[in-house]
C-alpha cells in the first residue's frame, strides 16, 4: 500500500475568549495504491485542502496516522521527513503563486535537482531541465521568464515539471485547475494523466468539480464538513450515489439544455 490514512483528525481552536474547537478534518480513513488515482471531492471549506497538507506533513495532525509504504510519518522529525519529501509531492491550486516570484523558470526547475543532488554537473542539469520542459509541453523560450510572465496554464506546467524532477511515487494535486480556463483545464488534466501513467505515480486528486474528478479518478471519496461521507469506485459514486450529499453534488453539474446537444453526439 502506497498511502494509508487512519482516523486522521485535525482540530483548530478558534475564538479568543470563548475558545472552541473546530474539527477541520474528522476521522478520515482512506488509502491510495501504486499508480492509482483517488479523487477527493467536496465544496470549498470542507477540509479537503487540510487533508492534502496533513498527508505531506506540512501541518501536524491532532491525531491519527499517515503511512507511506508502511512507514509512519506522524511524529517524525523534520529532518527525518526530508527523506520522504522527495517521494511525496504536491501540485497547488494557484500556479503563479506556487513559484518563487523572483526566480526564473530555469532556476525553479533546477532547484529540486540541486537539492537532492540528482545531477552531477551543470551540463547534466541543463539537459535534465530541457527534458523536463519537454515532458510538460513547454519550450526553451520559457526558461528565462519569471512566473508572472507566464499564463496560468504555463505556470502550472512548470509546477508539474518541478514535481516530476524528483520522480515521486505519490502526488497530491490540490485543485490544480480550479483557477484556470476550462480549455486550459483539459490540457493540464490530460498532461497529469499522461505523466502519471508513464511514471506509475499514485495520486490524490482534490477538486470541487465532480465532472473533473470523474474524468481523472479510479476511485472517489466525497467529503463534507471534515468527514468522508462516501467512498467507492467511480461507477458506484456517479451511477448509484448512496449518501444524500453525494446526490446533491451530482445535481450541481451544469447540464446543457438537451435541445442544444450537438447533432453528431445526440
Amino acid at each position, binding site marked *: 500500500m502506497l498511502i494509508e490514512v487512519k482516523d486522521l483528525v485535525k482540530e483548530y481552536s478558534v475564538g479568543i475568549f470563548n475558545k472552541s474547537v473546530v474539527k477541520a478534518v474528522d476521522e478520515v480513513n482512506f488509502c491510495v495504491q501504486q499508480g492509482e488515482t483517488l479523487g477527493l471531492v467536496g465544496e470549498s471549506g470542507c477540509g479537503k485542502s487540510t487533508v492534502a*497538507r496533513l498527508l*505531506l506533513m*506540512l501541518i501536524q495532525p491532532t491525531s491519527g496516522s499517515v503511512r507511506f509504504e508502511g512507514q509512519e510519518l506522524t511524529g517524525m522529525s*523534520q529532518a527525518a521527513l*526530508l527523506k520522504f*519529501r*522527495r517521494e*511525496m*509531492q*504536491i501540485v*497547488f*491550486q*494557484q500556479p503563479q*503563486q*506556487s*513559484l*518563487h*516570484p*523572483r526566480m526564473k523558470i530555469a532556476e525553479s526547475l533546477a*532547484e*529540486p535537482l540541486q*537539492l*537532492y543532488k540528482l545531477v552531477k554537473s551543470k551540463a547534466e542539469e541543463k539537459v535534465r531541465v530541457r527534458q523536463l520542459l519537454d515532458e510538460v509541453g513547454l519550450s526553451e523560450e520559457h526558461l528565462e521568464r519569471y512566473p508572472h510572465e507566464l499564463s496560468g496554464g504555463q505556470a502550472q506546467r512548470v*509546477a508539474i515539471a*518541478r514535481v516530476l524532477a*524528483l520522480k515521486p511515487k505519490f502526488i497530491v494535486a490540490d485543485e490544480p485547475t480550479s483557477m484556470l480556463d476550462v480549455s486550459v483545464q483539459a490540457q493540464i488534466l490530460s498532461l497529469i494523466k499522461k505523466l502519471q501513467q508513464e511514471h506509475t505515480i499514485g495520486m490524490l486528486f482534490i477538486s470541487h468539480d465532480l465532472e473533473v474528478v470523474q474524468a481523472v479518478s479510479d476511485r472517489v471519496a466525497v467529503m463534507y464538513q471534515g468527514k468522508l461521507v462516501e467512498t467507492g469506485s467511480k461507477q458506484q459514486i456517479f451511477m448509484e450515489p448512496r449518501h444524500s450529499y453525494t446526490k446533491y453534488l451530482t445535481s450541481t453539474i451544469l447540464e446543457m439544455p438537451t435541445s442544444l446537444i450537438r447533432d453528431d453526439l445526440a
Partner: protein
Amino acid sequence: MDTTIAVDKSYKKGVVRFVKQDKLLVYSAAVVLIIILIALMAPLIMPHDPTAVSLTEKVNPPSFQYPCGTDPLGRCVLSRIIQGTRTSLVAAAIIVAISGTGGVLLGLISGYKGGLVDSLIMRLVDVLLAFPSIILAMALVVSMGPGLGSVIIALTLVHWTGYARLVRAEVLTLKQSEFVEAARAMGNSSVRILFKYILPNVIAPVIVMASLDIAQIVLSMASLSFLGLGAQPPDAEWGAMINQGREFIRTAPHVTLFPGLALMVTILAFSLLGDSLRDYFDPRLREGYIE
C-alpha cells in the same frame, strides 16, 4: 481600417520610465547623493580647519572668507557643517547597518519559528517600544557616559525593534504563501527557505524603512548632541553646533541657522527618498495596465 497610433517615445523601460514619472525620487536621490559625496570628501572641500580656533574672529557674520560666518570660538561654520555631515552620516550608517541587520534577523526568526522564541523577541520589542525612543536613548547614553560612541550604541539598541516588527509581519504572510509551502514540500531546509525564499521578498520594505530611519537617526543624534550627550567638543556635530550658537541667536543667527538648515535638508531628503522608494517598490503603482 487604417490605424496609426503613435508610440509615445517618452515611454521608456523599467527604471528609466518610472524615474520620468516620479520626479520626487530623482530629486531626493540626487540630494542624498550630494550629501553622501560631501561626507566622503569632507577633508577635501572644507575651506578651513574645522577645529582651528581664532579668538580674533569670534561670531563673524558670513563673508567671502567664511561663507557661513564663524562660531563663538572663531571657527569656520561651513567647515564645521561639512565635518558634521560626515559625523552624522557615518554614525547613522553604522546604526542602520547594525540595527537593520539585527532587526531583520530577529524578525525572520521570530516570524518563522513562532512559539516561545517569537513571544520572547516580541515582548522585548514591546517593552522597548513602550518608552519614547529618545528618552530611552538618553537614559542609555547617560548610563554609559556621554560621547558619540554611547550615542551609536544607544540608538542601535533602540532602533532594531522597527525592523524586527516589520519583517516579522511580512514573514507571517509569506510563510502562508503557496510558494513557500511548495518549497517546504520540495524538501528545502528552514534556513534555506528563510534566506532564499523569504528574505528577498522582505528586502524592499526594509530598504524603505532604512531610508526613513536614517532621517530619524540624524535628528535623534542632533537632539542628543544639542543636550550635550553626543559628540563632545571639539568634534563638529550639527546638534552641538546649534547648541553653541544658542546664546547668540539674536545677534548672530547664522551660527544656528546654517547647521539647522543642513539638518533640515538632510532629514527631508532621506524622508522623501524613503517615500518615493515605497512607491517605486509597489508594483501596483508601477505597472499601468490591466489583465
